[in-house]
């Protein structure tokens, strides 16, 4: 993991292959190493849960997660033994005091170290990292809270106070972080990895740009022409993306605009498994280890809930009016080879350059 600051050119790995398509299993096998840090470039909605399952099946371990906010994935990764450090702003909790989820059990048993953050401070760490800044000012007043006062496993590599060089007052800052990789799910991408996401944007832009590389899954793989017609929707640029995984229903049971709603019945079954290690193992054996990929998961789903269960949560259209990127697109040279701007054709331009003496002998 790279920690803040500027770096020399060339240290940044670019991923410029034209075709990065591969399976989720291959992506995590090739691009995830034990002990690395990562972040989800989605929060709550559109979560890359198929990639989470691939990561768990891969058996990678001792990972550190920067978790902005989510519902399933933290408890799954803890139960699988994939992560042992967690910097977290928000984690959904179901069931109140009667339920002891895997996160609570791992804390009790010392299997997990945490660093508590707020939504804003965690995202500020990512944004500073994304921009190559060593630190970032955050909102005033937070130094009175235990979020800042009580240090987790990041210790003092988290919050500090500095003097505002202009105003002289103390300013709370967070350190910039660039995790090793991000897992991200989007609506569509081309095979080079230009990932397009829309809907609630939450943390996506900065969590995608902070890490060294992005493992991307997409509902649809589209022709690059589609990307070129709507560049404002590209949130994961190809030069950061190391793998593209075509994965319909890749965010299930979370929701994805334009594709499907969250699946509350499925989630309820999952929630019911949280309270005991045995039930959690049973759930994971059934839905993660019992299948090899998302296709198998969907077949199992259809077998258990019926095919129509997924149909019921499919999205109805709510179309955005397309942006018109049009201009006259007048070329330099018209169909007769004449330039309206220069008032001559290409031969006449060569003649003109000859006369001015700027052409050299080859």
């Amino acid at each position, binding site marked *: 993991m790279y920690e803040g600051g500027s770096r020399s050119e060339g240290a940044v790995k670019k991923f410029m292959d034209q075709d990065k398509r591969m399976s989720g299993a291959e992506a995590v096998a090739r691009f995830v190493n034990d002990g690395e840090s990562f972040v989800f470039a989605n*929060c*709550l*909605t559109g979560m890359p849960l198929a990639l989470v399952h691939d990561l768990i099946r891969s058996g990678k371990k001792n990972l550190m997660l920067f978790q*902005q*906010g989510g*519902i399933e994935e933290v408890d799954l990764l803890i139960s699988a033994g994939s992560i042992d450090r967690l910097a*977290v*702003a*928000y*984690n*959904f*909790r179901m*069931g*109140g*005091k009667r339920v002891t989820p895997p*996160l*609570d059990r791992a*804390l009790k048993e010392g299997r997990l170290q945490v660093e*508590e*953050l*707020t*939504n*804003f401070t965690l*995202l*500020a760490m990512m*944004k500073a990292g994304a921009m190559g800044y060593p630190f970032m000012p955050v*909102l*005033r*007043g*937070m*130094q*009175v*809270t*235990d*979020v800042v*006062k*009580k240090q987790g496993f990041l210790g003092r590599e988290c919050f500090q106070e500095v003097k505002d060089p202009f105003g002289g*007052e*103390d300013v709370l800052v967070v350190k910039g972080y660039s995790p090793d990789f991000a897992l991200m799910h989007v609506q569509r991408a081309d095979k080079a990895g230009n990932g397009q996401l829309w*809907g*609630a*944007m*939450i*943390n996506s*832009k*900065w969590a995608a740009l902070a890490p060294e590389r992005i493992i991307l899954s997409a509902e649809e793989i589209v022709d690059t022409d589609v990307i070129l017609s709507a560049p404002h929707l590209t949130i994961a640029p190809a030069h950061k993306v190391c793998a593209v995984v075509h994965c319909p229903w890749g965010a299930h049971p979370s*929701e994805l*605009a334009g594709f499907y709603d*969250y699946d*509350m*019945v499925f989630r*309820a*079954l999952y929630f*019911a498994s949280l309270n005991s290690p045995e039930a959690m193992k049973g759930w994971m054996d059934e839905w993660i280890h019992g299948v090899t990929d998302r296709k198998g998961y969907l077949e199992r789903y259809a*077998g*258990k*809930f*019926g095919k129509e*269960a997924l149909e019921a949560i499919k999205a109805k259209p*709510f179309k955005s009016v397309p942006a018109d990127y049009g201009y006259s697109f007048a070329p330099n040279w018209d169909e007769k080879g004449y330039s309206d701007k220069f008032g001559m054709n290409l031969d006449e331009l060569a003649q003109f350059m000859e006369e001015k003496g700027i052409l050299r002998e080859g």
Partner: protein
Amino acid sequence: MGVRYTLDELIVFRAAQEIRDGEIVVIGQGIPMAAGVLARKTHAPNSLIVTEAGLVGIDPFKVPLHIADTSCTRGYSYGCDMFDIFTTLVNRGYVDVAFLGVGQIDKYGNVNSSYIGNPEDYEMRLTGAGGAPEFAGHSKRSVYTMSGGEFVEKLDYFTTPGYVDGGHSRYEAGMPEGSGPSALITTKGVFKFDEQTKEMYLAGIHPGATVEEIREQVPWDLKLADPLEVTRLPSEEEVRIIRTFAPDISVGRSLYVELLTRRVLDVLSKAAERKEGVQT
């Protein structure tokens, strides 16, 4: 017979009264969102609901599971991201009210949504801070709702600043002058904060609640407003709006879980029946 309502519906209704027309309101999931929507459908149609997901001007058609789900994102006026919300709106002082649910609160309106139990050996982790500290720290007012939480002398974990140590301490810590919690709505009453000391006092009680039972829940010597406001009950129409929008909240948490469990069993048994039907 008068209007029939649940305690959670009453909290939603009373909390909605804290929103004024035309205000920019940041809202968390659950009861606060139901209150915000009720306000927009009744006395505050021009208020602007914002969530930290980067959604501004949302008009959810049913109560969201979380702050970015499918019910929030059908038609909103400004789509930015979480960083923009906390900097360009919250830090610049555009937010009038933050509406947040509360797990544990002390007499200066500081809130815990992180850990419960002895700080050396916590019993359980709650959701964590989320957006609450900065929202409550920098909105002009914050309004808390508490359905299942508790009043404590000292928080198990200090997540979100209210009036910190009382008096002027919140502003000395760097939060905007004049900002701070303005009301807490529980299942029994309405609490506000003394202008000078910033200590929480009882401002009103709901019909059917007594001062004695409220005092039993509060570990400090709770002062009372004179006179105490008695909470107006919602009209049938207002209850209908709440129940239509947020039946999950109307029934309360445990009945919601019961209904959901019933639904899961139903879906599974129907699917199993169909499977048998196919095989035979």
